[in-house]
């Protein structure tokens, strides 16, 4: 089964009310792990499945299992919409193909999941940069937004 779209994990919504996640600059450490087309990540995904589990890319071609730590950008308001953003993440000198990613909270116990990102197909870098670009930090587009 391949990726079937972008999802905000249902468990994450509940955890927001429980105050589990801190997106401030010096807050929790969020990571993005990359997956092949055998991944079955959906809104029902509650946590990072573990190194190499569930279709995570192999530790090769400059990919480290567990993924890369993202850089938090301070949450802000765009009008009346609260938005969250991350700095674009780049895997340098990369040689691999990924179909999607999972953002999870690496600080909290159990690595709770946040968002499932569908790359819309195979994305391949060969001895180059593999860059995940986060959307414009605006009310209609930001990666996480509460309107």
């Amino acid at each position, binding site marked *: 089964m391949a990726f079937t779209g972008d999802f905000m994990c249902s468990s994450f919504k509940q955890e*927001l009310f429980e105050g589990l996640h801190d997106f401030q600059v010096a807050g929790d450490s969020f990571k993005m792990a990359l997956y092949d087309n055998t991944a079955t990540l959906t809104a029902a995904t509650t946590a990072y499945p573990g190194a190499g589990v569930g279709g995570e890319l192999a530790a090769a071609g400059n990919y480290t299992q567990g993924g890369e730590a993202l850089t938090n950008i301070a949450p802000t308001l765009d009008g009346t919409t609260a938005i969250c953003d991350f700095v674009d993440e780049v895997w340098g000198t990369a040689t691999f193909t990924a179909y999607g990613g999972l953002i999870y909270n690496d600080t909290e116990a159990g690595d709770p999941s946040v968002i499932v990102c569908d790359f819309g197909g195979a994305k391949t870098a060969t001895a180059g*940069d593999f*860059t995940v670009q986060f*959307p414009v930090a605006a009310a209609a*587009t*930001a990666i996480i*937004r*509460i309107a």
Partner: protein
Amino acid sequence: MKGQVGTLEVGVVSVKTTSGRGMTPEEWADSALRHIIHVGDDAIPAIRDQALAYREAIRNVLVLYMRKAIQSDRTTLYNLLLQQGEKEMAELLRKL
């Protein structure tokens, strides 16, 4: 009284890949700009034009300074290689 409707939504990431090279300063500048300035489609035309011109000016500055940062980093690497006795490799790097 009815409560206002609110939503919790997720955005869409995009992926940019290169083969046999890294991203250029121009490509990085475009990525950075998306986090620095956003010009809304429904902005007043005169203000939108000003904002777009401002964005272009910022892009040019970003590209310029990124090139300088690359140049400085090569100088640092050149000296590190020299200190390690890798004169030939240092010269190759300097000539890039």
